């Protein structure tokens, strides 16, 4: 009786007030903060007067560059943010989540897969004004870098990144497997039929018909994958167009360079064409190779598994870029045990590539300092000591002058010139299609690819399904190329 009448604060009142308080806190905590509001929020407190740049990098690879930079910039400190993922879209998802949660960056690192994704979300900043301002410093860089790599870093007329590394999908060979099959590394102008003959000859089966050594393998992703076959069959997953703008760039830095002629303000992939006849034909070819036991079942991811089987002599050929040379050397493959060649010709020999570089966070508070580091990072001195290229070449440098015999002397491949001649000899070589909705697009692409490859759907049906879903995706994002509309 006593307690019921006299308790001044009832359970209901208490819970009500606690609830109101907690809800207020929750809403405050979950409220969408402006991404820029938290720039540097996660960084350690800087020493007096110092700038701290928060940078998405591989700390081990970046440290030598940072050390060199700090010699001339003692007022700048760095906070490394290491982000790993199964593939580029996974990393992009994590970066987007990171920024969405208020942990902004000053400098990010993105490959083609995410260039337009970040630019389209206005997460990355155009660097046109910085480039124009520091044109004299950058002249040497642009002279050393193929224009197609620069064009791939543009979005709607503006430049967003300065590419540091790139990889075109060439063809790697395990020379021992080829030799055992009585074959040699093909010549530059080999064709799709030559490829088929090599793949078939290199495939070894046991008495029961089970494949022991595969002629060809690929991983299910956007870059590499079966996309190179789409390209050499004269097609693409999406329609290609050129954004207006960017004339200043080509005039100022590439005047007289024939490879730069006709380039504009970056790629626009305005509509899906997944079920184009050439694409169906390319996928049909992949399914045929699988059915014949030339290709194993298709995996997702970055190709680490395939690298293991390649080094173990269980695989003859796979599409890869310069990044494989370092990986194979690190895995113990001696120089001469593997080689590389251009992708075979089908309708044409147009290659696909992906390129990567740093990007500036659009709402960063230290944009000027970040740009200064970004500019330093693409200098020859910095690139030469970058862990990506030193001591082992783990990916292809965008600077033509860095692709030398000396660089590949210890690791191979013998035909290393292919990496850059892909661009020089085939200037129509283009980036993988990666519009601002590239993450969602990639998911659909790998989804329907796996359906076709496990024979759940025929290639035509799979690509019809992909086309339909890509059309829905584009319909939900009508403004991704605003200036195009």
């Amino acid at each position: 009786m006593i307690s019921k009448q006299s308790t001044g604060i009832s359970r209901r009142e208490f819970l009500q007030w606690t609830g109101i308080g907690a809800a207020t806190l929750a809403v405050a905590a979950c409220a969408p903060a402006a991404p820029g509001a938290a720039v540097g929020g996660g960084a350690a407190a800087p020493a007096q007067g110092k700038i701290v740049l928060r940078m998405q990098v591989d700390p081990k690879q970046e440290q030598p560059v940072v050390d060199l930079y700090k010699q001339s910039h003692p007022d700048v400190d760095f906070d490394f943010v290491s982000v790993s993922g199964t593939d580029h879209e996974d990393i992009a998802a994590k970066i987007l989540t990171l920024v969405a949660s208020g942990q902004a960056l000053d400098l990010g690192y993105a490959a083609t897969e995410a260039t337009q994704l970040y630019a389209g979300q206005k997460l990355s900043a155009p660097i046109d004004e910085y480039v124009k301002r520091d044109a004299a410093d950058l002249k040497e860089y642009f002279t050393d870098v193929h224009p197609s790599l620069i064009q791939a870093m543009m979005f709607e007329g503006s430049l967003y990144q300065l590419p540091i590394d790139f990889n075109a999908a060439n063809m790697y060979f395990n020379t021992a497997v080829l030799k055992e099959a009585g074959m040699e590394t093909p010549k530059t102008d080999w064709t799709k039929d030559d490829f088929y003959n090599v793949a078939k000859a290199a495939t070894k089966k046991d008495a029961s018909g089970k494949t022991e050594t595969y002629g060809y393998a690929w991983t299910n992703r956007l870059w590499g994958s079966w996309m190179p076959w789409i390209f050499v069959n004269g097609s693409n997953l999406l329609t290609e167009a050129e954004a207006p703008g960017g004339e200043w760039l080509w005039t100022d830095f590439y005047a007289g360079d024939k490879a730069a002629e006709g380039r504009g303000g970056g790629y626009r992939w305005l509509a899906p064409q997944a079920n184009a006849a050439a694409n169906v034909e390319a996928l049909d070819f992949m399914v045929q190779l699988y059915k014949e036991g030339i290709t194993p079942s298709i995996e997702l991811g970055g190709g680490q598994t395939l690298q293991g089987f390649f080094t173990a002599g269980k695989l003859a050929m796979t599409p890869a870029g310069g990044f494989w040379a370092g990986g194979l050397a690190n895995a113990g493959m001696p120089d001469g045990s593997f080689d590389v060649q251009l992708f075979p010709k089908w309708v044409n020999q147009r290659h696909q590539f992906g390129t990567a570089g740093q990007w500036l966070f659009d709402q960063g508070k230290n944009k000027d300092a970040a740009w200064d580091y970004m500019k330093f990072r693409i200098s020859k001195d910095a690139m030469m000591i970058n862990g990506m290229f030193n001591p082992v070449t783990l990916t292809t440098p965008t600077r033509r002058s860095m692709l030398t015999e000396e660089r590949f002397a210890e690791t191979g491949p013998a035909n290393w010139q292919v990496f850059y001649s892909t661009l020089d000899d085939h200037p129509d070589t283009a980036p993988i299609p990666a519009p601002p909705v590239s993450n969602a697009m990639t998911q659909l692409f790998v989804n329907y690819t796996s359906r076709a490859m496990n024979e759940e759907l025929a290639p035509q049906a799979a690509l019809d399904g992909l086309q339909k879903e890509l059309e829905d995706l584009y319909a939900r994002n009508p403004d991704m190329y605003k200036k195009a509309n």
Partner: protein
Amino acid sequence: MASVASTTTAAPRSSRNPFHWITENTLAGMERRKALLGYLFLSPTILGILVFTAGPVIFSLVLSLFRWNVFSPPEFIGLANFDRFFHDSRALMSFWTSFVFVVFAVSLQLVVGMLLALVIQSRMVTWMRYTYRTAFFLPMLMSGAATAIVLSYMLHKEFGAVNYYLGLLGVPPIPWLSQPGWAMASIVISYLWLSMGFTMILFIGGLTGISTEVLDAADVDGAQGLTRFWNITLPMVSPTLLFAAVTGVIGGLQVFDLPYIMTYGGPGDSTRTAVMVMYEAAFKNMEIGYGSTIAVVLFVIILGVTAGQFGVGKRLVFYQ
């Protein structure tokens, strides 16, 4: 009477110490202090639940009514996300996939967990009992992501260790991760391996709690084997069974790491679970509103299923 006296003789509170209601040296004051102390002890938990569970749930519900990509201001679109959800065959399929996964994974988790507990609680040398208990529980301590990576290597159709050893026994290569049915089976088995140790420990706790008098009485009455298990053991551990089933279903409906890493939801969408679709919508495609819609639907389903389980439990569970 004491309360009447204290309330009728007290001067108006506003004219005195504002904390009088809690500091007054009366029975009522003592009661209030006691109540407040209780609430103070409860408040961290209540606040934690409100901020980290209820708050996000409410916020998700609000977000589900918006189109929002984080970088631009949210746009109110009413129930459009829900309309999209009910026409999104991939999202609907993912819920069905989660349901199928739960049916197989949780059933096996309960059956295998119970069997292991019964075997381990049977007559056995103590060191052996501890060894088995530890061995079966150990996978529970492993990181799901690390396990998924290793298993995806082991289960590779052409190059995996599992098919290699099966091949030595004459078994043709099994497409563990590359055919829809096998891929689901692989995920279920992997989940079972990771989670059965916990269920086993729960059942061991339940079995240990059965009164020896009841078991002795069953012995005297001649109840043996399956009869004893069905009529004595199972009813006695039914509260544990209900708990294991409820937590198992909740955990199963939220499965993410294994299918995300082992199959990426494939082949096709065959192992794409509801949480995967939610993650992909919200964090890969930056459709936070639509991702929230999927979360809300999943929340309602989990709430309903759990309520249903408790409803069934009321009729079937035996409390001593």
